[in-house]
């Protein structure tokens, strides 16, 4: 049991990192990584939403969709659950932690369309994870996202002063450097603890 949880978490953070090996959540990864502060805020918000969404969607899937033979409605239900969840988190933060709310700003509602969140929920269903495994996969997947976005934000701060061809300005140079980071993460592939 414990070994299973450990291997799921290690897999989600390093070996099958959501961004560098599964390409889930690239839009906010490229969009919110110009500054370290926004990167950290986005990372925390994603960890929070991914963990909650995994837990809630598991319950919804098990006791509502499977029980009523409505598995074909999974995608539709999941995206609605995520949208409602993000809305709730937004309201809660606005009331109780206004400083974090203002720091996250526009990025909070945008998490709804982050494919890492919907992706982790769909992968949980695909891999037949139980409640604990789903939640752990959600939280550690979010941690992997945060690790990636923070690493990339520090690379991008240096990139400002780099000298590269004019046509690579903007997204292309970011993609190429993200590719190099993903090459580094490939070193973890094939790693097994137990």
């Amino acid at each position, binding site marked *: 049991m414990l070994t299973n949880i450990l291997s799921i978490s290690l897999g989600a953070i390093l070996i099958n990192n959501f961004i560098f090996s599964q390409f889930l*959540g690239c839009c906010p990864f490229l969009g919110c990584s110009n500054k370290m502060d926004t990167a950290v805020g986005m990372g925390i918000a994603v960890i929070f939403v991914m963990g909650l969404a995994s837990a809630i969607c598991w319950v919804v899937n098990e006791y509502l969709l499977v029980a009523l033979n409505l598995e074909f409605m999974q995608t539709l239900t999941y995206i609605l659950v995520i*949208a409602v969840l993000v809305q709730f988190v937004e309201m809660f933060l606005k009331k109780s932690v206004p400083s974090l709310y203002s720091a996250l700003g526009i990025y909070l509602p945008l998490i709804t369309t982050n494919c890492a969140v919907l992706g982790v929920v769909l992968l949980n269903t695909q891999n037949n994870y139980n409640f604990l495994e789903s939640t752990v996969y959600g939280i550690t997947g979010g941690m992997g996202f945060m690790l990636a976005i923070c690493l990339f934000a520090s690379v991008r701060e240096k990139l400002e002063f780099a000298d590269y061809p004019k046509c*690579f300005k903007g997204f292309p140079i970011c993609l190429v450097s993200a590719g190099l980071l993903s090459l580094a993460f490939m070193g973890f592939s094939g790693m097994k603890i137990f």
Partner: protein
Amino acid sequence: MNIGKQFKEGLVTNNPVLVQQIGMCATMAITTSLFNGIGMGLSVLIILTCCNVVISAIRKIIPNEIRLAIFVVVIAGFVTIVDLLLQAFVPALSASLGVFIPLIVVNCIIIGRAEAFCQHEPVGASFFDGIFQGLGYTCVLIIMCLFREFFGKGSFGGGLINTVNGVIGTGNGVQIFPAKYGALILTLPVGGFMCLGTLIAVMQYALRKSAEKKELKEREEKAAAAAADTAKEVAE
């Protein structure tokens, strides 16, 4: 309604991936064989066109505050339909694209077009916008697939050519040079990032060159007109 202009915008000047730079997750993830690329491209094209038409048709009765929620429900409905159809009729594609078919729901291209185009434009224009933007997306996917497959594995048309018993999605494609001489890195996730980055850079270069050329031409025309004017004045 200007179909020619929309065609040009969708494929080149306002291409969803290369110019608007949205919907990149799936572009980088699934472009490993021609079969995946064409399958994904066509799925997005169909979903985009259907969603554009429906959203444009109901654009006047959608309350502005909850429009995004309605867009998402419409999109999720069509994605579910396509997902189930693929599972039933092209199981190989469904298996190899995996989680990326349901993830079309959160693909920025579809919600982006709904937000930027369909909620202001009539049904006809939205229909063509869906088709041309979808075609632009498919073209980018095909270019990336061909490039990554050829230089990565030395093959062409994986999944479509040399199929086993004629079942689509089973073949390895035509081997042009032995796979061991290919740059394996291109078929790995790294290749996806690098390939798309380079492609966008090439596009930016081409667009800037054509803009410069246009400017130069305009300046020359202006100079010629001015010269003609002075010549006229001198003659008078």
